[in-house]
């Protein structure tokens, strides 16, 4: 695999899949906090 292919793969997957994972983790975290505070 060429280096340019690997770089593109890292950038695209890093931003899109990494972004999704980042926001998903934060959403779960905030939901847990809300649940702890008694909100349902």
């Amino acid at each position, binding site marked *: 695999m060429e280096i340019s292919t690997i770089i593109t*793969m890292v950038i695209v997957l890093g931003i899109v*899949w990494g972004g*999704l994972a980042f*926001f998903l983790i934060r959403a779960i975290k905030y939901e847990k906090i809300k649940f702890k505070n008694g909100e349902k």
Partner: protein
Amino acid sequence: MKQQEFFSSRWALIIATVGIAVGTGNIWRFSRIVAQNGGGSFLIPWVIFLLIWSVPLIIAEFAIGKSARIGPVGAIAKTAGKKFGWMGAFIVFVSTAIMFYYSVVTGWCLRYFFSSFSGNLFKVNDYLVYWNNFANGSEPLFFHLIAISFVAFVVIRGVTKGIEKATKFLVPSLLIILLILFVRAITLPNAIEGIKYFFTPDLEVILDYKVWLNALTQNAWDTGAGWGLILVYAVYMRKKEDIPLNAALIGFGNNTISIVAGITIFSTVFALSSVDAMTQVSQSGPANTGLTFIYLPLLFSKMTGSDTINIFFASIFFLALFFAAFTSLISMIELSTRTLIDFGLKRKRAVAIIAISGFILGMPSALNINVLANQDWVWGIGLILSGAFIAFAIMRYGIDKFRTEIINGYGSDIKIGKWYNYIIGILIPIQVVVLILWWLISSVSWDPEWWNPLHVENAGTAIFQWAIVLTFFIALNKYIVARTLNNNLD
């Protein structure tokens, strides 16, 4: 009118909204556009436009819907001023006009699922002839009726018992099926060649302005940003619900699914194609159906030596397409339904009117693929205007006020910074102007009679149909806005 229905949780809202965003565009349009625009060269601008078009507009739709608590006509009137309610009506009309033919497309997916499941699809010698016989007959009409009836049955039950319940089953099922297909595709021999093509950039192609414009239109298409659909679901979000984090999840989640679908299709085509794989992926076919309904069935028939396994994979592929189309169609019918509810109608009557008129007005597209292609062309570009109207509404309201009071207001988990002002105030208008001009200029260059409104895909037909709709709504603006807002006094 006191609001009675809400999505029961954050996850219910997110799943339903992912159902809007993930449609057939993620699976078949995305792969074709990537192939036509140089593989990896396309992905870089596509990711950039996710950040400067899709996510900001999804945030805007969530915020307008949550604060206005009314469908697009009233929401735009409340946000931009009563003089501009016609913009909301145009947004509704564009998505409704798309719904008419999208129901036909949903029916195609269902029909191909049945053909695969019964094994009939693999008894075919020529898939182009098979497709043409199907598309030019009366069968699409029957499946259009089935699709719109199923969706009406869901929407008539309301938000919690209908839309939430259906999407909670359909969206996770769709994701599981896509994952199974993904694993099968990347483990096929030679699949790595498809993955390589998918991610390999061509530095000459990446400088071509057409690649950037296609990346923008693909984002406008497949995330559902600017359609008014997310705005309507946001009407049913609880007051304590967050906006920015949910919007980011929808945008990134949608594009994640596009990548999964793209890798699946490229791996399959490169692994199983005996002829030039790229020609097959990038071929358009009638109404862009070539790859999905003509070439992929052929590849599925060659996937393994076992007919049973081939039937299984083809069936779940078309089932996934059907689920993707179905959940998007639910949101389109809910958008029109909500607009009639705002007008004072009860949900049952509103759904009945929309389903019956949707069936009747979708008939020409079901019976003649050129009508479908024309409507896809006219209202597909119309979505760019819808996105522009949403950005305009925020500008009229005051972008900074909108950001600090509504987006970052009660319930928000994360705060949006001033960068949002520049995107809505500068970048979105630039993107709209460039995109519309490009569409018109390229349309003029490929059709000498570019002004002729009777042609399938040219500037004339788009401008002509937009003008009729815009004139109608501008003329009736006072009446539409007054009736909508009077029925929804707090």
